[in-house]
């Protein structure tokens, strides 16, 4: 398999779009990749004009590749990511308070649906602050499908020597998953003094086994209660988190991906979305 050579940062010409840059640099360092800034617009701009419009100095872009392309933004981003074997597409999460996927449906939604690689969404509050991966939060509902996000998440955590927090949210009204091999909070708690330690151990061992080939030094399980997105957001706010890794089953139809929508909208740290096969 060809090693990912690039991280793609699409820019629309607005200064706020460059807020993803520090996160992209941090992730590129971890993956040994080159950051490619790609400006997608109707017209090709001269280099100085391009940097000026993006509010970037020559120092800001030292070591980066800057390119331009035209056409439908989402299609162009996806096409460039595929052509450049991008490890990730790193872009700003929309600042609008509305549903982010509706607000920029023609871009972010399309990119998520068509991207050949995971997509990292950086909240606008990130600004140009330096970013480093020290704590990575992986919400995991216990299904084998969502477990597909474990290995690539573990890879990141391992490269950064970051703490991997596996967050399992027990949601009161949620139906019990029927997928074979699912492991959720125990239905039967015969004796909590035995069930909880055993369940925690088993949950974590399953996750650990799926981290392969990455070896994770710092990993812990947290059980939270309540609605999934609220619990994820609360945990990451209270526990200085640098990245949230979400497994997404690839549907943006109404009533689907509610957790992802909410987390992208309100997270105070970047969110990486791994598309998994449901």
């Amino acid at each position, binding site marked *: 398999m060809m090693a990912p050579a690039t991280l793609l940062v699409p820019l629309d010409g607005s200064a706020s779009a460059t807020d993803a840059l520090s996160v992209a640099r941090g992730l590129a360092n971890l993956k040994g990749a080159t950051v490619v800034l790609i400006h997608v617009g109707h017209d090709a701009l001269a280099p100085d004009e391009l940097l000026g419009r993006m509010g970037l100095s020559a120092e800001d872009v030292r070591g980066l590749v800057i390119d331009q392309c035209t056409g439908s933004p989402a299609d162009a981003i996806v096409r460039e990511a595929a052509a450049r074997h991008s490890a990730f597409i790193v872009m700003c999460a929309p600042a609008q308070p509305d549903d982010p996927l509706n607000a920029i449906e023609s871009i972010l939604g399309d990119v998520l649906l068509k991207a050949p690689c995971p997509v990292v969404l950086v909240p606008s509050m990130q600004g140009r602050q330096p970013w480093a991966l020290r704590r990575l939060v992986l919400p995991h509902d*216990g299904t*084998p499908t969502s*477990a597909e996000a474990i290995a690539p998440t573990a890879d990141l955590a391992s490269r950064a020597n970051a703490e991997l927090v596996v967050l*399992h949210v*027990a*949601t*009161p*009204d*949620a*139906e*019990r*998953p*029927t*997928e*074979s*091999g*699912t*492991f*959720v*909070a*125990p*239905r*039967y*708690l*015969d*004796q*909590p*003094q*035995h*069930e*909880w*330690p*055993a*369940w*925690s151990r*088993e*949950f974590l*061992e*399953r996750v650990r*086994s*799926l981290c*392969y080939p990455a070896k994770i030094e710092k990993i812990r*399980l*947290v*059980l*939270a*209660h309540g609605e999934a997105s609220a619990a994820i957001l609360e945990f990451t706010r209270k526990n200085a988190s640098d990245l949230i890794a979400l497994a997404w089953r690839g549907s943006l139809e109404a009533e689907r991906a509610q957790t992802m929508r909410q987390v992208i909208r309100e997270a105070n740290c970047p969110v990486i979305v791994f598309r998994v096969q449901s």
Partner: protein
Amino acid sequence: MRSGAPVIDRETALAPGRVTGPSARVVNLPLAPSSDPGWLLVEDGFALVREREIESVFAVANGYTGTRASLEEGSRLSQPVTFAAGIYADDPAANLGPALAVLPDWPHLEITVDGDRLSTETGQVLEHRRMLDLRQAVLWREWRQQASSGRITRVRFLRLASLADRHVLLQSVAVTAENYAGRIELVAGLTLPNGRGERGPLIVTRDLATVVGVTPETSVAMATGSVAQPKSEATKSHQVLPTDHVDERWSWEVGLGETVRLDRLVSVYTSRDIADPADSTRSHIAKIQERGVTALAGDHVNAWSRRWDAAGIKIVGDDEAQRALRFAVYHLVSAANPDDEHASIGARSLTGQDYRGHVFWDTEIYTLPFYVLTDPPAARALLMYRYHTLDGARRKAKGHGYQGALYAWESADSGDETTPREVIAPDGSVVSILTGEQEHHISADVAYAVWQYWRTTADNNFMVGAGADILIETARFWASRARMEADGFAHIRAVIGPDEYHETIDDNAYTNVMARWNLNRAADAVAILKREQPTSWKQISVRLALAEDEPVTWQRIAAALVTGFHADTGLFEQFEGYFGLEEVDVIKHRDHATPIDVCLGREQTRQSKAIKQADVVALSALLWDEWPRAIHEANFNYYDLRTAHGSSLSPAHYALVAARLGNVALAQSYMRQAGEIDLANNMGNAAGGVHIAALGGLWQAAVFGVTGLRLREDGIALDPHLLPGWTEMRCSVQWRGCVLRVTLATDPPRIEIEVDGSGELTITIVDGPACLVRSGRRYAVARNGSAWGAWRETVE
């Protein structure tokens, strides 16, 4: 395995003739799988995350040792564990008490093909199938693996823990070079799994025997023997570091399509059996090698055949129930050893590390009836464990300021309490654990089991030698535990009943009724023994320093104990104040992913009427004849709506009582729920071992619920309620030397009974005719409309 009855193609399942090489030379394993797919649990493919569930569900055990069904070569998630019953190790790092010791991973076997080690995690798995053969108690595995070199190797395994000689473990493997000629090497060794040697027990290997020093006083010895076909180049190498062990290697140069086979025998003895277990394994391995693998495997299959004859349940018309009940009986038989009265059955039997092998009330209330009615010597051995740990129970009672015997809520080898005081939940909260302090009904549960065993078997030797001590000492405990109060009644305050959502409660109905029962039966036992065993009785009364008036005191306290019964409604109030608690919609929560107490939180649950498991309904299951049917019905209907079934013990008791009440659809639903606890594919609960008490409860739901069987002083009573779709049910039970083979059928509605063994007894149909039956004869009775006709003797 999980979705419906498995379909086995005998032509492909471990059949020897399927080798694809052009000049296959076939070598068979010493047994073949059962031909009826209804006896096979099948797991096709390989899903890493489910490994531990499969390891538990497919475990092989014989009550002396138990071995999880881990892949021989291991995987990232394998938890290869072998236990010996009653062998516990202390773990100072844990606060959960001693745990069953992990013994060397005897089935571990590495297969190397021209230098490449076979693994499901490298190369390509072409086929992978595991089968638990319930009838023969054999774990089968078939695996076709293509290495990155393109070499295709076919491997067939069998594994068993002999029921004929519990010290024997057997593994057989056949390896076929399907599309190559080359070198096949097998490597085995008795090492502790997953590097446990670094912090685990000391292992010493000398003169064929590997000895594991579990504690300074306890050791387990294993010795191995092997037979290779064709004869191989075999070497042994003794390694000292990192752990002391012997590696054995067998290697062959094989031709295209050629198969080689290795049979490995392992002998196990522990210092609980014999002073020098190493010496015993050495002599034993020589003896069993002489007998030969095929004969040993045959002995094992024959022993299981006898157990199935005595304990099997046949269901016609419901394959799912049939599979669940066979699975239950398989693990129940695997869990007990009639020859060992110093070990009992832990919550996960010998199939997993969860619960550390600790013994709870589960054993006496949920599993023991199976043994009482199908294998009385095993039941006796389990009760003797309680006798041998009686001093621990006395110490606990004394420590709490009571008299007599208060059994440990969690018991290991000594009988002393091993329940921890707190646990840290995964959300970081510290959960205080009060069961060890407050869940006292276990003493009455043990007494209940003693009485049931005694009255069903008439084993007076047990009673005068041990059972009376348990009954009397537990009665003494209750006599000191209950307090006469100003209202003129006796109360038992600050306890936990089976419903552990509500702690530190007063006058739990289950506890008080069972205590009353314990006190009365102890007084009855004294009267019976005085009358029928006067000589022995004198020895017992001296041994226990029993005052003449003690039984009268027990009866007086029993009569004064409040039970929470409300005559106006026919309901038992589960504990004082329960009826005033808040109603919550328990039904809504039942299918949710999160248990209700986790959703609501501990305090809100405590303030609600939501209950964890059968509590008052458990009384109906245990003491049916104490109250009329209407009382059972009223309480069942009331508590069914409020039971969250947050314990795996609960659904089976509800199934039992629903069946007795004739609510067969609900009974079937609860039986399915009980059967899915280990067999469903989305639970994960089984990863730490099977829920042996739930399996015992499932058997009871069928035998006590569907047949309506009740034990009487003159025999048994039946009140059949076949479940929807069941056209026939057959089961066997034993009563005082008589073996009864009972058939219930719907077309036409009838009961047939074949009596074997020795003696006679009365069989009564509830609200119907009775019949005195004798061994060696058959009887039948038919129902016309709603009325049963007369019993008649039949000829085969």
